[in-house]
């Protein structure tokens, strides 16, 4: 299918450390398959230490030891095998084809350089236009994220958190990349600003027609902008479905719990907490990694890893208790 922009297959990435001869292996990403299509926002949800960030690092080919790719491929429409790209090939791909929006906007923007200079640093060589034309492009693009073009003369600390996050979104999208990875883009923002920034992000994504991988633990954010969603638990994908369907009819017990425990205004029915804690990825449980906390666990779940199976169009679940 030519419509697929990113295809991840059988990806395994482990942190391998060796201290005093003792080998330790943390299986942060352990066998993940999924695809992201053109012009869609794919939401990836999971708790802390479920392997979300490791997955992004791998997809963006930004991993370094002790993280190692053990198996699998990451294929982009513009880079057939990004895991084997050489550094100079990666440098050409980044920002032009593949951009990242990260959580802490302060750590992306150089504190001693004006916003204008940050744009030059990131994007000038990729756009290949004269400086005057470049400045015009920057001004037009800032207007698109609803910022006054005058802020190019400001330093990052002179802007509010919401404005800075808009600047990083503008930076990530000015080269019209085919693929944008957004890692917790609104977690550091206030509630009122968060919604504005999300709406704006979606608008820009639609306008430039790129695909986006949106990673956050906040299901409300996914509900607001994602087209399709994947739920990660302990390094594996457990369920994937169109967003509306996932919230309406979750099939995996973990997803069902997450959706049921969402507090909603005006609904005070008691929510049952999930017993136990997320597993330690250095010594994950055998079989399905959710089985120690699962209300539906069977003998089979303790020994076999449930494969992802299709239960409805575009809806995949990894659970033995779910009938197809």
């Amino acid at each position: 299918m030519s419509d697929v922009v990113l295809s991840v297959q059988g990806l395994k990435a482990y942190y391998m450390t060796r201290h005093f001869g003792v080998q330790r292996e943390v299986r942060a990403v352990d066998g993940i398959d999924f695809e992201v299509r053109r012009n869609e926002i794919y939401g990836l949800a999971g708790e802390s230490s479920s392997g979300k960030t490791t997955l992004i690092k791998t997809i963006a080919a930004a991993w370094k030891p002790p993280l190692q790719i053990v198996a699998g491929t990451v294929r982009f429409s513009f880079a057939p095998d990004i895991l084997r790209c050489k550094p100079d090939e990666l440098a050409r791909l980044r920002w032009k084809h593949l951009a990242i929006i990260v959580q802490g906007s302060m750590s992306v923007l150089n504190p001693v350089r004006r916003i204008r200079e940050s744009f030059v640093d990131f994007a000038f060589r990729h756009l290949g236009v004269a400086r005057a034309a470049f400045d015009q492009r920057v001004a037009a693009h800032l207007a698109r994220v609803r910022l006054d073009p005058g802020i190019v003369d400001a330093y990052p600390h002179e802007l509010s958190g919401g404005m800075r996050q808009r600047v990083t979104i503008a930076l990530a999208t000015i080269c019209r990349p085919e693929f944008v990875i957004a890692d917790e883009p609104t977690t550091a923002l206030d509630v009122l600003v968060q919604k504005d920034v999300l709406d704006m992000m979606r608008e820009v994504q639609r306008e430039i027609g790129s695909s986006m991988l949106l990673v956050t633990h906040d299901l409300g954010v996914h509900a607001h902008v994602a087209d399709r969603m994947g739920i990660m638990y302990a390094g594996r994908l457990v369920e994937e479905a169109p967003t509306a369907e996932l919230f309406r009819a979750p099939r995996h017990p973990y997803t069902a719990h997450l959706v049921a425990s969402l507090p909603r205004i005006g609904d005070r029915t008691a929510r049952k907490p999930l017993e136990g804690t997320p597993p330690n990825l250095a010594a994950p449980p055998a079989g399905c990694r959710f089985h120690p906390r699962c209300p539906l666990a069977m003998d089979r779940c303790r020994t076999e890893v449930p494969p992802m199976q299709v239960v409805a169009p575009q809806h995949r679940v990894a659970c033995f208790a779910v009938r197809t």
Partner: protein
Amino acid sequence: MNSAPLLDVDRVSKVFTRGGLLSRERIRAVDDLSFRLEAGRPEIFSIIGESGSGKSTLAKMILHIEKPSDGRLSFRGTDVSHIHGRSARLAFMAQVQPIFQNPFEAFNPLKPLDHYLFMTARRFNGAPDEAAALRMADSALLQVGLSLAEVRGRYPHELSGGQLQRVAVARALIPRPKLIVADEPVSMVDASLRMAIVNLFKTLRDDFGITIVYITHDLATADYISDRLIIMQRGRVVEAGDARTVLADPQHPYSRSLKGAVLLPDALAPAATPAATPT
């Protein structure tokens, strides 16, 4: 003194000044704020607002960490600013306990967790010896669904955020407080564990008769647990009252925009449709 309210916040303000002699700037973090928590009627009282609305400054004043610039804050009839000296301070702290946002920062990473529980037991409850402190720590941990056997000798990094936050609640319970001030207690906790903490607050209110001041920016959990609430904007209360009534139909424009910003799957049918329509 039985008729005195548990906590009476009477026209309290806090002003911070910034800058030197020439460019002095005065920031009213909390501006003329009043509310009252009755004794003998435990409740969960929520303070809602964005960052910069003054909610943490208010929490610090209740905990006697900051002094109000104006107004009176009294706890069971005594003016909090009149608390001087070690014994009066300890007596106050035993009754008003804090729970902080980030459990990973609230505990010293170099010390085992039980150390804190024992220190709290010795300092506030006057536990005469190790055995008594141990008993107090164990019973407090049992109340939050943990036990001393699980926690003993373990360090903060060995526990998950949810477990750690429950240890923080257990620590706050040891002195048998009347009031707990919880500043964003679940914003750093994972979704599958968040409800365990929130439900725990309900248990504290219903079974232990503890009044809880729950500070948050999350309207959804506030609606789930609180009895009364106030909504703050730039240091001032813009709306106050019964939690259900206020959140079902907020009157002030700021409260409305806060409710409008809550991202929920149900309210978002249009955004949740597949993006097949190219524009």
